[in-house]
């Protein structure tokens, strides 16, 4: 069957019956813009003007109110309840789990118990050096007389808090039966390497990624299993989770302390919920607020994997009580299949790996721009290159090019389709020249949604040269342009033996393959291309917290009664992905820290 051949300008799209907008609204999403347009305030309200004051009663009361229901929120709720606080959780969506429920469920935990059991040491100072260098590369100073390796005081304190509390959080959650874990391994059964395992400062380059451990015999796992275990632990501790409750405002007393929240329900009611000690936000990022993405994020962005209810509510709410914002230009990035990012409200999946040893990524000039075997977060940075002369993002859309060898060996691993499977996003050509023409024709279909990206006239000839150059590197086993394959991460995660069962007995790596991440692209077609854009797993900017997970104001003083963890706050790692699980690791850790400290707070008068 021909793929995507119908480029007829006379084709008239049918009138579709399904309105995604209605479903988004029903999901609790898509409200930010409309609410603001209608004058509804996301922010803060003095107690005297609140619903609780008007009706002389709160609708619900707890010691601690937790907003959200992902990893950070559930960890905070379970731990606070375990310590003896009465907790109530409010979730904006109709279902629990947030983006954690879509995730791989891995969490990056330095010096974790599984490492220690395996005899892997993870000294504190070396770990801090690694984390600071990766997070704040431009400031890193190993000889900093202040002992912070060049980081700003609060940034360094958060990294220290991460190291000091991550493993205790994991151990405590396991001890109380709330969340079990195991050490993640690569395809060749080694503890997984960090994403910059080759930094000389990284003295514990393997084993920090752990994953949620399902019960014996279970087939499910990952993020959904993490939510299942944590929600079960919350239920056992009598923590109610009210779904369909969008927190719109915090309620503050005369002293400026946060003493509760007001939430809107799906049927239009407002409920006032008191948090006698504190309110902890774990309410997710701002991926789906297009204005925030446009104005805060760097470069062109296509979609995001966060659940559609992640609309940056905490930015507006905490901003109203004077919170300091941080890392607003940051995100945990991932590459996405362009067509899918354009067609779904929440990008279904990111491109975790560029699989295949004959795969390359080229820009609209037909030139490689990145080591294709690096991790998703770092790889995506290549999209944000501004050309000062042309006045354009030269890498806004990249093209994953591969040949039949990769199609055969790794077909069926997303997004490379298995044999006999048609993928509307896949572009094919019998020659590289034909492939180039078809890529450009495809881009023409999307000009209204991509800023008009088209192939440069030099693309086809440059692609020939790029392939020839790559093939020479593959034969030599060395990639002097991008050092592909020089690092354990390149060789052990995105590179693996053929995953297609039909080729499981194929000889791989080939005897003439000195570098297992590269093999010469065939001189004969067919050739394949997938258009790839830069997107997010989640953004990771928001209110800044201190090492106690308290949200701070612009004077760096804690805002009494207000805590945050997860992707709704300014990320303690900035935008670095220290290793696999660098979204959930800090989320669990700072959710844990927030619970410990919120539990110790005194009851606040209203």
């Amino acid at each position: 069957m021909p793929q995507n051949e119908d480029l007829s300008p006379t084709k008239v799209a049918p009138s579709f019956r399904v309105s995604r907008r209605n479903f988004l609204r029903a999901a609790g999403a898509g409200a930010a813009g409309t609410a603001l347009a209608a004058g509804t305030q996301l922010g803060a309200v003095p107690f005297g003007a609140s619903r609780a004051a008007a009706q002389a009663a709160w609708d619900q009361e707890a010691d601690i109110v937790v907003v959200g229901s992902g990893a950070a929120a559930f960890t905070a709720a379970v731990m606070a309840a375990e310590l003896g606080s009465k907790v109530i959780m409010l979730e904006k969506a109709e279902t629990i789990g947030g983006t954690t429920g879509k995730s791989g469920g891995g969490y990056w935990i330095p010096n974790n118990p599984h490492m220690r059991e395996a005899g892997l040491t993870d000294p504190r100072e070396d770990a801090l050096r690694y984390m600071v260098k990766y997070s704040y590369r431009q400031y890193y100073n190993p000889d900093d007389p202040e002992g912070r390796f060049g980081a700003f005081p609060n940034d360094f304190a958060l990294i220290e808090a991460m190291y000091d509390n991550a493993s205790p959080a994991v151990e405590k959650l396991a001890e109380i039966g709330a969340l079990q874990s195991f050490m993640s391994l690569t395809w060749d059964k080694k503890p997984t390497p960090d994403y910059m395992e080759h930094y000389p400062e990284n003295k514990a380059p393997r084993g920090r990624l752990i994953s949620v451990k399902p019960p014996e015999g279970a087939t499910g796992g990952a993020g959904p299993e993490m939510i299942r275990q944590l929600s079960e632990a919350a239920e056992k501790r009598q923590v109610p989770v009210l779904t369909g409750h969008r927190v719109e405002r915090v309620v503050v007393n005369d002293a400026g302390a946060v003493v509760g929240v007001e939430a809107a329900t799906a049927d239009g009611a407002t409920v006032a919920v008191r948090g006698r000690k504190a309110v902890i936000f774990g309410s997710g990022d701002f991926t789906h607020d297009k204005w925030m993405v446009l104005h805060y994020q760097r470069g062109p962005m296509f979609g995001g994997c966060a659940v559609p209810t992640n609309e940056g509510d905490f930015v507006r709410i905490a901003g109203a009580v004077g919170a300091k914002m941080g890392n607003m230009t940051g995100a945990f990035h991932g590459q996405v299949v362009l067509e899918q990012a354009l067609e779904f409200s929440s990008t279904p999946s990111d491109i975790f790996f560029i699989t295949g040893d004959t795969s390359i990524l080229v820009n609209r000039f037909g030139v490689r721009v990145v080591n294709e075997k690096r991790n998703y977060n770092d790889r995506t940075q290549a999209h944000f290159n501004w050309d000062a002369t042309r006045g354009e993002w030269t890498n806004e859309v990249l093209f994953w090019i591969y040949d039949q060898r990769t199609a055969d060996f790794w077909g069926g691993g997303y997004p490379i389709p298995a044999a006999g499977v048609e993928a509307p996003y896949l572009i094919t050509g019998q020659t590289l020249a034909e492939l180039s023409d078809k890529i450009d024709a495809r881009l023409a279909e999307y000009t209204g949604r991509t800023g008009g990206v088209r192939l440069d006239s030099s693309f086809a000839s440059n692609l020939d040269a790029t392939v020839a150059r790559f093939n020479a590197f593959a034969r030599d086993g060395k990639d002097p342009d991008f050092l592909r394959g020089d690092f354990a991460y390149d060789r052990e995660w995105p590179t693996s033996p053929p995953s297609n069962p039909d080729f499981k007995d194929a000889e791989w790596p080939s005897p003439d393959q000195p570098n297992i991440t590269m093999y010469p692209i065939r001189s004969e077609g067919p050739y394949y291309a997938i258009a790839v854009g830069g997107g997010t797993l989640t953004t990771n900017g928001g209110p800044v917290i201190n090492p106690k997970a308290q949200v701070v104001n612009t004077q760096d003083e804690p805002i009494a009664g207000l805590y945050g963890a997860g992707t709704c706050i300014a990320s303690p790692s900035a935008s670095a992905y220290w290793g696999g699980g660098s979204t959930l690791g800090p989320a669990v850790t700072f959710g844990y820290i927030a619970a410990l400290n919120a539990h110790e707070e005194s009851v606040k008068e209203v």
Partner: protein
Amino acid sequence: MPYSALVYRDLPPETSPARATIVALHGATGGLDDLVPLARSLGSDVRVVAPEAARGVYTVREMVAHTWYGGGRAGRPEPASFGDSLAQIERFVHDVRERAAEGEPALPWLLGYDQGAVLALALAAIAPDLVCGVMAVCGSLPTFSDPGLLEIVASDVPVLLVGDRSDTAPAEAELGATAERFKDLGGRVTTTWIDDARQLGPEVATALRTWLDGRLDH
């Protein structure tokens, strides 16, 4: 360009001409090939088109499965991801129609299992003119907090509901409510209960084939 972004397998009939086109929608944590054997068993003269949910699901070790939408139970979906998938399937059906060969039936039958059954029923309910009928195994019309979310207009669309006597989902009441909803709007509904229907074994195949043959002979 196709309207849908879903990947799919398109299997022509073993014997021509095609008597029917079956769009086979897999269940939660599944893949596009899951229903192909069952769909193939409906006759050598059926064309089988099997799309795959776009959302990858991580299982114990690897991303090896796909799911149409979030939410705890198939019949109680998370609305946003459900809406995305329903919109994609509607577009996919248009693509299937446009790709139909000369002399081949353009309107497809929907065969769905679990989440796929829920989506098949939902599409048939809101756009009955796009399909010949629905075979829904272990699925019912979805329920949302807002009951008006699905603008159901189904008229005389034929529907086969297959429930699993050995499983609690969907419950008898849910299948019953689905049947009544379609009947109220002129649908012709048959409900069958089979032990271990979730295994998609020979009994299910026989029930589907018998029902489909009865409709095609008309």
